[in-house]
């Protein structure tokens, strides 16, 4: 942890002499991914895979901690489903940014730099890591970056990261059985007959075979 704190202090010092952490690259922690192999063009499709099975996960414990805190802010527990971390979203994001494919390697610096920015910003504003902040302080930061069209220019890069990270969190969350259930997806079960839309719903919507 000392090393990480040193790094962040270095970043903050560097930031003082720059337009606030808004340079081309935010973080020295973004490493080039080793040349891992993908699953190939003929993977076993019936096997059950977990993140890390095909290529190693690469996020550090510190990065995973920030990643978990942020995805839980984006999708927290409520009465219908647990928080994002509980549905394996951190593992999914780690798998994603560690993957040897162009789309994912393009996302890697965005996500890693963005996670570093979250901590740097938390330290700058509240002298704590993002994961250590209470909800209102986490929200104070997220409110500034949650919608790109409204973000101040100095937060433009952070807002672009947040957009990407929210999509990854949402995709990772709702593609699980528990996430799908929260949305009201009740398919992927064999049915003897397919009835389509219930007539009462169609009536309510003014739709159906005879509607014009």
């Amino acid at each position: 942890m000392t090393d990480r704190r040193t790094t962040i202090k270095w970043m903050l010092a560097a930031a003082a002499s720059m337009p606030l952490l808004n340079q081309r690259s935010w973080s020295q922690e973004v490493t080039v991914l080793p040349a891992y192999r993908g699953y190939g063009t003929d993977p076993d499709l019936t096997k059950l895979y977990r993140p890390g099975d095909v290529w190693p996960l690469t996020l550090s414990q510190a990065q995973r901690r920030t990643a978990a805190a942020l995805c839980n802010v984006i999708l927290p527990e409520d009465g219908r489903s647990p928080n994002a971390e509980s549905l394996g979203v951190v593992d999914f994001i780690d798998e994603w940014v560690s993957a040897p494919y162009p789309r994912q390697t393009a996302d890697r610096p965005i996500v890693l730099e963005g996670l570093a920015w979250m901590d740097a910003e938390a330290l700058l504003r509240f002298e704590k890591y993002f994961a250590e902040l209470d909800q209102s302080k986490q929200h104070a930061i997220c409110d500034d970056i949650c919608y790109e069209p409204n973000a101040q220019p100095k937060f433009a890069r952070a807002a672009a990261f947040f957009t990407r990270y929210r999509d990854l969190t949402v995709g990772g969350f709702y593609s699980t059985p528990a996430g799908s259930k929260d949305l009201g997806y009740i398919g992927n079960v064999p049915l003897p007959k397919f009835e389509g839309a219930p007539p009462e719903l169609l009536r309510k919507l003014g739709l159906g075979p005879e509607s014009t």
Partner: protein
Amino acid sequence: MTSKANTKQYDVIIVGSGAAGGQTAYTLSMEGVKVLMLEAGRKYVPEQETPMFQTADQAPLRGASSPEKDFGFYDATIDGGWTVPGEPYVQSTSDPKGRFTWWRSRMLGGRTNHWGRISLRNGPYDFKPHARDGLGMDWPISYDDMAPYYDKVERLIGVYGTSEGLENTPNSSPGCLLPPPAPLVSDYLVQQRARRLGIPIVPGHRAVLTQQLDFKRSPALLHPGNLKAQKIIAEHMQQRSACIWATDCGRGCSIRANYQSTTVHLPPAVATGNLDIVTDAMVSEVVLGRNGAAKGVKYIDKHSGAERQATARVVVLAASACETARILLNSKSALFPNGLANSSGKVGRYIMDTVGSSLSGQIPLLESLPPLNEDGASGHAFYAPWWGYQDQQKGKLNFARGYHIEFGGGRRMPGAGTLHGLEHFTGGSYGKKLKEDARRYYGSFVGFDGRGEMIPNENSYCEIDPKVKDKWGIPALRFHWKWSEHETRQAAHMQKTFADIVDAMGGRVIGKVRTDGSEAIAPGGFIIHEVGGAIMGADRQTSVTNQWCQTWDVKNLFVTDGAVFASNADKNPTLTIMAVAWRAAEHIADKMKRKEL
């Protein structure tokens, strides 16, 4: 099988095992013809390999696409996609608008394992487009020639849909089609609102068994007088289950409820005892005998890397349009220095794809619906056949040919990309509000895809690259591509139409409506409907084969895949590939019985 294949005498060699190869092999083997099929990819067993109920979280990257699985992890494509390792192809230009991307699939059954199963008949205009508007080329056959074969293919593979009596959108004979699946809420909404714009919305046609095939009546209609064939196909029809209304057809189907060559054409063909299949056999060229007739083919045994030869009385190429053209162009001899059966110079020429353009909308009326199982038959319950024939005839439109609309909404199984970009509707919500928004917006999106006719042109073709070879040493293809204004204007028309439909549904268009057709149109090859390259015609000077798919130059060499298409109607080509192949195979069997081949 390899050793047997090398010693046995065959009547016919078929190169390729997809829609064309499968249908050709089926028809020939049912008629008692001894067939050897060579497939470049590996053996594939859908009953064992299909990920039927796997969920996204059981796949790497939640099943998202990658360059190794372009259509997502669970897509039934093996060793294929836009690029195939070790099997390059070349672009003639770096201009993105002059590029053609080539999808291949190296597996038994080829691309039929993953395709969309949309099965539309060409209509009367589609076989005689030049006669109607002076553009492109006519086929040497008419719809009336083809109608009986469309009937047969529909009866054999199982296609749902209805006969609506619409212009250039043929009816099937009674008993050929299966009942269409129940529409989704979004289907009804599109139907209601598009109809207000004068756009017809009718049940789609797909090769999915909405009920068991008619194994009592159909066998005698498919194979009159051939009791052995009737018995075999009746058994196989009973082995195929009806759809269980779950899991995406693009994964393939382990219960054989949709059409793929591996579950429908090949099992009964093998059951006749007349078909041997050799997989991992990459054909490089057709071998010509001294008499000017095809003697067989050369192929690479991909296991050993050794070159082998197979011989037969007749050679049928069904390797997919561009691969077939490549084999012909690579088959050079003193008699055919520019490639086999190429005295016309037309081999590789007139490659056509489908015009594609897409737009989607978010529809408030579909928000916050109660939980509904909308897996259905995995899409395409309805579609819009082209409605502008009369307007085009009157000169009211600035493009010559039509398109149909495929569309889909519904509460589909969530994946890695589900609900991406939601901030455009929510203003950037996160936290508990985002969870509420997700429930509200899930299932409220409808996407529209235009699929339109491309007119063949002199600037869209493939040839052999002088330098590049694949890993087997076989010279690679180089592609040339250009859309004409008929296609780009059509793509712009699609965009405007889709925006109008979204608007009529009370929805909001997602992204931008592209009014510049050259921006709106998908790149060449992108829709994976490539046909042409060895077109059929009435004149040996301007075409490669006659109406029987028989090359003009080499009597015992046939091409039964999409390469023979003289036009590429908006109707998805697979059903027509099968109908053409059936007709050609029947002709081959008939000529062989008469000792004329």
